[in-house]
């Protein structure tokens, strides 16, 4: 019987089978940020277990609230910083070099096909875009990961998500994943690895694949995953060039992780995107999704472009293509946070930051910030935000606020008109 990519990665990392159906895996990369890690560090210290299994396999960043907004967040950052120094964790990214973890770590080449990756953050599933098994975990799992380099999972069940058709203009990966979450509901993929396949995925760049995988958790999935191919190899080439004679050789090697033709899937979902419209959420769950035309005219107070979902250079370019030569509506506050310093620099070089500033946007440093209502753009009661982020939960961006999730195109269009708007009218 054939295996899925998830099954192959699990088999290659199996440390133990403590009980039937449960697998303890060796972990290649344990990623850490300053919201869920300091409390793990403090607990390990309390228990006399302040050790790390391998400092080269731990990657750490301060990203959620940076620079710190108050004494508590400054303390969290300090605990991380001191810990990274104490244990010789060289891949630690502090102010000036820090960015949103799920954009920063791929950019540094830390994620490779076939890897196992964990982090105390539910959007860790983003890294499945590289053909890795990447899962969000809690703090206890993180403690064990830091200490022992292992993590326990149930045997993987996979859902094949086949995406076909021609992408209409103005429709992007965010629209596809919102449509998929609507179809599956917020619990529809629980305990599943969502394997994204098909001609539309094969044509996607890594940024779009990361957007897709990023929101797989909003359908309850353990991880999203894409088969590693030439697009993956070209993205990773600066980091893997020494290991392979050519990109062709890397692509060939990556094929060993591909799901077999006779692999078994617990569920299959087929999506034809040819007639898909831009998608927007309503209400307080990410499976409450409508066509943008059904939401058009909904007034917004703030537009937020950034996050691990849509804060990459490709997203900023898309939004800028609509904002160029236009201004945000009088009543709208526009906020851009490029997800990493490198993305910020490229946006500067390409003149995109100028476009945003001329349009009347505030441009922030890279941070998770208002996506989870912690800083830098929190909503007041009764306010509405058009956002490129990933969660529209009640209170997510501030108590009493309403968040409408959408693509960078749609968010830029909402900024210009001051209400939810079909972005295609601005694209020629």
């Amino acid at each position, binding site marked *: 019987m054939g295996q899925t990519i998830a099954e192959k990665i699990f088999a290659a990392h199996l440390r133990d089978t403590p009980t039937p159906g449960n697998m303890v895996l060796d972990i290649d990369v344990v990623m850490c940020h300053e919201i869920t890690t300091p409390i793990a560090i403090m607990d390990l210290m309390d228990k006399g277990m302040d050790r790390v299994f391998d400092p080269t396999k731990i990657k750490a960043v301060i990203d959620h*609230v940076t620079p710190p907004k108050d004494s508590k967040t400054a303390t969290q950052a300090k605990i991380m910083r001191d810990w990274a120094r104490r244990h010789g964790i060289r891949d630690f990214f502090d102010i000036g070099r820090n960015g949103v973890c799920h954009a920063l770590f791929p950019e540094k080449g830390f994620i490779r096909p076939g890897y196992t990756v964990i982090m105390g953050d539910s959007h860790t599933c983003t890294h499945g875009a590289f053909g890795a098994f990447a899962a969000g975990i809690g703090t206890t799992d993180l403690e064990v990961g830091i200490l022992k380099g292992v993590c326990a999972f149930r045997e993987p069940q996979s859902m094949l998500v086949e995406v076909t058709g021609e992408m209409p203009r103005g429709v992007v990966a965010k629209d596809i994943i919102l449509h998929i979450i609507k179809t599956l509901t917020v619990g529809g993929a629980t305990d599943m690895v969502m394997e994204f396949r098909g001609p539309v995925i094969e044509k996607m760049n890594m940024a779009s694949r990361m957007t897709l995988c990023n929101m797989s958790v909003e359908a309850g999935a353990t991880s999203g995953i894409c088969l590693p191919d030439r697009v993956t190899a070209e993205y990773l080439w600066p980091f893997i060039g020494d290991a392979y004679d050519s990109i062709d050789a890397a692509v060939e090697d990556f094929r060993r992780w591909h799901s077999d033709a006779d692999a078994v899937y617990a569920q299959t979902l087929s999506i034809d995107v040819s007639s898909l419209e831009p998608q927007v959420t309503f209400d307080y769950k990410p499976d409450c999704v409508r066509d943008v035309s059904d939401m058009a005219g909904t007034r917004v107070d703030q537009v937020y472009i950034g996050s691990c979902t849509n804060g990459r250079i490709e997203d900023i370019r898309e939004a800028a293509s609509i904002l160029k030569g236009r201004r945000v509506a009088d009543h709208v506050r526009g906020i851009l946070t490029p997800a990493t310093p490198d993305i910020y620099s490229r946006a500067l070089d390409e003149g995109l930051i100028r476009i945003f500033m001329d349009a009347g946007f505030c441009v922030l440093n890279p941070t998770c910030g208002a996506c989870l209502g912690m800083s830098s753009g929190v909503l007041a009661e009764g306010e509405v935000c058009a956002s490129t982020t990933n969660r529209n939960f009640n209170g997510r961006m501030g108590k009493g606020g309403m968040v409408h999730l959408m693509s960078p195109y749609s968010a830029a269009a909402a900024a210009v008109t001051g209400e939810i708007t079909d972005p295609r009218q601005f694209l020629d």
Partner: protein
Amino acid sequence: MKRFGGRAIFIDRSDINTDEIIPAKYLTEISKKALQPHLLEDLRLEDGSFDPASEELRQARVLVTRANFGCGSSREHAVWALEVNDINVVIAESFARIFRQNMFNCGILAVELEAADIQRLFALDGEVTIDVDLESGEVTATTSSGETVCCRFALNPFDRELVAAGGWLNYADQHY
């Protein structure tokens, strides 16, 4: 094995997310105890039947709810917020994976029952006390008037080991 159970609180909604269980603004705390007053602070039910400041929540030791409890953010703070309020059992039709694992990783219980059994529990009137017997795999609910409902459940064998070990850190330290 540790005994699980006590006074039950019923929250009649599916897809309760971890932002509702403990809002992100409290994630800057570095002690679990500091979460105690904020459990379910942002949860609002459409029918107004839940009040996070109620005496009922303060006295609860078991939380009974519907499907996909604990979805969203991976924050283990959601489990700790329950734990520091002495709620060591959540009973639901289903759980989000990370929340479920976080419960067992802390050595406490996320018990899944059939939707029909959950409905039987919700149908009980008055004050309800729930006892969870891990040996027999039975949840027994008793009302103040003496009415009793008994439901069977199955625990994943590894999750059972985690409860016996007092959590995943203890287990992993012994085995790996």
